[in-house]
């Protein structure tokens, strides 16, 4: 029966890069699982993803930035700035104060909800404006992105210090807001979502095959397509089972459920991945990064495309900032510091070329997972943070090295 292994091998080498990345992730998981059994505990699994989400959400936008040949160094303090603004709005009662005096009869629950929504909208607008500012200077005034966003890095850092005035602003009064990053979706909701994802995967397989059939293209093995969709669905369902603690009758009700932030991350990842392959914006981004002059002569509006991409990056800074404030429960003076490097590292680990033109959102998510798994696993093994950065750095260099030597071999 050499047939099935052959098909698997073919599938493996076809998307060599992505598959090696996934294997590396699995190896890291297994390795840590053996080293510290608590790595696989429901508690840890429930904790890891929300931590990673803040990085991963921005990595989805950073892929586009790097694909067009740019870079954004400002996303760390940028998201930090949004987070302290959110915290300040809640801490000083900027929104619920006036609301209460306008509608004195409002219940606490609805007051918190409206305050949360207004805060989110304001912070999203802030993020968009930050992106618009940087994008305008980069696209219209033609200042290199490295310099503009390095400037943004300092400006947003200053913004954080000005808003916080050197102290932490605690979000103690609004639990609805904290739900964004700390809330759990009830077990049934989680299962429903998982089933929906699995069904969508299955439908996608058959739609893609029908399309290939219609245009007479090679279809590949149905079993393989189903296997891939199956593995992915099983992962999602398995995750939901674990975080719902379905197996654990003793577990506290309050611990059961999929973190809301993970759902947000999932939606953003799917949306950005869709944009990258199925919209003009995505196509144009890859075209500009692949060959700017050819893209220009194909009538692509380069300035507008680049502007849109930095604005999108700004919006995702907004989302991350909102989540960060809710996750930490306060706005701190160091908010977001160093995130930009984790975000960029996620993209690069995930196969985004710093030369532009190449990279996937999926890869960046896996990259973020690798980085987060490393930090988390090393922490659980009680490796001091003195060593953690060294290991992260080596992994990043090794990954790119492996990629380069792989490309050489194929050339």
């Amino acid at each position, binding site marked *: 029966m050499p047939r099935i292994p052959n098909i698997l091998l073919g599938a493996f080498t076809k998307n060599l890069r992505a598959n090696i990345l996934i294997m590396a992730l699995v190896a890291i998981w297994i390795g840590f699982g053996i080293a510290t059994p608590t790595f696989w505990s429901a508690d840890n699994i429930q904790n890891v993803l929300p931590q990673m989400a803040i990085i991963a959400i921005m990595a989805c936008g950073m892929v586009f930035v790097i694909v067009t040949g740019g870079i954004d160094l400002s996303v760390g303090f940028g998201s930090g700035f949004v987070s302290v603004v959110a915290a300040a709005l809640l801490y000083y009662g900027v929104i619920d104060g006036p609301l209460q005096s306008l509608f004195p009869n409002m219940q606490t629950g609805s007051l918190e909800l409206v305050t949360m929504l207004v805060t989110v909208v304001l912070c999203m607008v802030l993020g968009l404006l930050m992106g618009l500012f940087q994008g305008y200077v980069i696209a219209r005034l033609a200042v290199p992105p490295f310099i503009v966003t390095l400037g943004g890095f300092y400006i947003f850092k200053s913004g954080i210090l000005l808003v916080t005035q050197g102290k932490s602003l605690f979000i103690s009064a609004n639990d609805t807001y904290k739900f964004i990053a700390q809330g759990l979706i009830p077990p049934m909701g989680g299962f429903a979502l998982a089933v929906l994802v699995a069904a969508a995967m299955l439908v996608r397989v058959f739609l893609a095959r029908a*399309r290939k059939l*219609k*245009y007479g*293209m090679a279809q590949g093995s149905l079993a393989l397509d189903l296997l891939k969709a199956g593995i992915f669905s099983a992962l999602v369902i398995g995750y939901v089972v674990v975080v719902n603690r379905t197996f654990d009758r003793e577990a506290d009700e309050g611990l059961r459920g999929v973190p809301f932030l993970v759902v947000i991350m999932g939606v953003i990842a799917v949306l950005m991945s869709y*944009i990258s392959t*199925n*919209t*003009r914006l995505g*196509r*144009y981004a*890859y*075209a500009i990064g*692949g*060959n700017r*002059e*050819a*893209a*220009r*002569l*194909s*009538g*692509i*509006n380069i300035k507008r495309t680049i502007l849109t991409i930095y604005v999108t990056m700004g919006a995702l800074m907004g989302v991350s900032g909102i989540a960060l404030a809710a996750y930490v429960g306060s706005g701190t003076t160091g908010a977001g510091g160093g995130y930009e490097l984790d975000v960029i590292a996620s993209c690069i680990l995930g196969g985004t070329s710093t030369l532009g*033109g*190449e990279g996937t959102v999926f890869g960046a998510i896996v990259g973020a997972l690798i980085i987060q798994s490393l930090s988390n696993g090393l922490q659980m093994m009680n490796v001091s943070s003195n060593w953690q950065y060294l290991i992260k750095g080596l992994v990043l260099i090794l990954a790119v090295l492996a990629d380069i030597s792989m490309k050489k071999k194929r050339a």
Partner: protein
Amino acid sequence: MPEDVLLEISHVTKQFPGVTALSDVSIQVKRGEIHGLCGENGAGKSTLMKILCGVYPFGTYEGDVVYDGKVLRLGTRSIRQAIEEGIAIVYQELTLVPKMTVGENIYLGKEPRRGPSIDWDKLYSDTASLLKRFKLNVSPLDVIQNLGVGQMQMTEIAKALSESARVLILDEPTSALSAAEVDKLMEILRELKSQGVTCIYISHKLEEFFRITDTVSVLRDGKLVTTRPTSELTLEKLVGLMVGREMKERFPKGNRKPGEVFFKVEDLHATDPANPGREVLKGVSLDLRKGEILGIAGLMGSGRTELVSTLFGEYARVTKGRIELDGKEIAIRNARDAMSHRIGLVPEDRKRLGLILIQTVLKNMSLPNLNRFSGFMYIDQNAELAAVMKGSTSLAIKAPSVQVPVESLSGGNQQKVVISKWLMSEPRILILDDPTRGVDVGAKYEIYKLMNKLAESGFAIIMISSELEEVLGMSDRVAVMWEGRSNGTLEIGEASQEKIMARATGVEIAAG
């Protein structure tokens, strides 16, 4: 091995995964001769040269290269080693650093030292004597980016020769040169020959073999067809040997019936946006009829490429004059404007300007046409694929599928992808800037046939070419450019090489 053979390629076979690039090739290059090497794209010329200059070290191929009586064993430092052995190569793409001087470029990586520091005086005086030896008309202190393409090419040759090269390999040295610069190059090659340098000369311009080479070797599909003294060959024979069949005519006959004039350019002036003081067009007037091929001839630097850039709205800014389409004045400020008036441009340098090499055929072809398949947040990938497949089939693009990266295709097929991406946008005017540059003989013929077909179906084509024969062979009329001006349009019946050259050099000025 006979005494007079300097370099013997003996039964060399080179395999790549899935392809045999060279199969049992044996060629003898005699001391002091200029040995031409010709073949279609993909015939194995480049692979052979890469073996000689150490890109593929000894042991990665079968067979031997015997150099001056010894088997050449280029090891791990192979490229450097080949240079030390006296084998120098000038690549088709220039490899100079634009912001450095001629001297710095020539001695890059081997700067003369005095103690720990570079001996600049020696470097520049050595450069000067080198340039003098080959009668090159550039100064050692000139910055490369300020030189013309021809001078850059000369600098590249001087760089190759700076380490007492005994074998000089030239890979398509004339593809970017004007006729005058080609003459100059030929002169230098003769000079080198008289100084005892052996030369291997690769070119797509077959006429050049008859001007300069002593012997010609022809490769086809990785095999040596023949090695013969140039004196025994004719152009037709050579083409026949290359393609493996006799070519009756280089230019297919079309059945074009040009209609009325619908596009006019009057007294167009334009400047370089990067350098607004520099006027690149100083008064160009021409008109275009439906269903015709208008050739544009002119020397390098005469404003040919600047003219098409201006008509396409990129890299030049109109300062005076008018462009008229269907009797109405139009403004073309960028590529999008040009496309909205249904003008398409196949640019001269397809790798730099025409294609995104790492992307698939599909994505390249649909790039300027995505609007037709997409809404705000989606691309109708079914419609896109259908349109691309149709385009790919109608131009007979040879590719395993439309999902392979264009960089894996041959030059001719890459060019067809660029043409086809513009055909998909259904232009009324298609501008072809040097459409057959770096394309092999067979693919050239197909592109000519395609041009005929397009013109017959009502497209108007503006074709620029640096090969006069091509302009004469394919055009209905020829507009000649001279120093940024148009110097009259000749009907094909009255045009000849001499007449075009007289106009292109300003010896004859058009009336009006």
